[in-house]
């Protein structure tokens, strides 16, 4: 049974649209997929990424002991308000991506950016070995061996890096290593913006 079309021209146009619809859908899907793949490559898109619940808030109250042997002071919430933007970096010696991001942290420290470190669920002797071998980018360093302070920050893995503005408010969180791309495209501009 064929459909009686009131206007043959409209019917022809509709047929053509029906023919093109799957093509358009495939094209759009392809473009979206390509954008996702590109984002995965540059680190802009992370399918497992979850926004931090602490963005726009002050960090939780905490006080962590120093790591013996580094000569660095421990870290507490009061140390995070210095009138300058800073990074808070959770790391562990057992964490492989932490090794990847370490050179970037060292570079930032050389450029004068204040980085506060928190050693997460790591034996102090292992953290110390890690820093002795690769250098210490931290201005202060707290030891969170039970990982409880990390939970107050909403941490779900290491490394995680938080950017605090000069008022001590959390503005940005990176779950995963700060790669060279992320340093250039996100950290550096944000540090400038919140200075």
């Amino acid at each position: 049974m064929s459909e009686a079309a009131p206007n043959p021209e409209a019917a022809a146009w509709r047929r053509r649209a029906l023919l093109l619809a799957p093509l358009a859908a495939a094209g759009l899907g392809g473009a979206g997929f390509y954008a996702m793949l590109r984002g995965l490559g540059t680190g802009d898109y992370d399918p497992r990424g979850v926004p931090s619940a602490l963005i726009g808030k002050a960090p939780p109250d905490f006080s962590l002991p120093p790591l013996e042997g580094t000569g660095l002071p421990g870290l507490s919430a009061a140390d995070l308000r210095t009138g300058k933007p800073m990074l808070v970096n959770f790391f562990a010696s057992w964490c492989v991506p932490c090794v990847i991001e370490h050179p970037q942290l060292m570079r930032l420290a050389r450029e004068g950016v204040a980085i506060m470190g928190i050693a997460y669920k790591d034996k102090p002797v292992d953290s110390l070995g890690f820093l002795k071998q690769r250098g210490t980018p931290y201005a202060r360093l707290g030891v969170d061996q039970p990982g409880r302070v990390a939970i107050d920050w909403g941490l779900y893995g290491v490394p995680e890096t938080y950017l605090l503005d000069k008022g001590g408010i959390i503005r940005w969180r990176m779950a995963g290593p700060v790669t060279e791309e992320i340093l250039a495209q996100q950290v550096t501009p944000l540090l400038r913006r919140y200075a």
Partner: protein
Amino acid sequence: MIRWLLLLMLAAGPALAVGDPADQLPNPAQEERARVIGRELRCMVCQNQSIEDSDADLARDLRRIVREQVAQGKPDEAVLTFVHERYGDFVLLKPPFKMATALLWGMPAIALLGGALLIRGMRRRQRVAPGPQELTQAERDRLAQLSGRPRE
């Protein structure tokens, strides 16, 4: 060899996912409450398991926190709020209804409504579609002329 290893891993998997019995609360009613709360909370590491089902380190820590707070006598809501404040909406396996999640919650209703509208549209078009029509007098005349039969 590999096949046997795989079989062994499959058999061992579910047994490993159970939490450490040493972490369980001595009071069975409290332990049951803690489990109910824990099943509402997503393991942020594995993402498709609740913290009760996950063997991840972080899930174990959160299980302990939930049990501590239950043992302290905190109401269920307060325990969920504690974790929600730190980890955001994503940690709740049942996300709260708000602007950002309206589409998520509304999707079943939207899909149902869309389907109903589609069916109505198709029915109506079927009804409107004209059946075979009577020939007009002029057409009948022409037909008769062509087929050479005498006029009616």
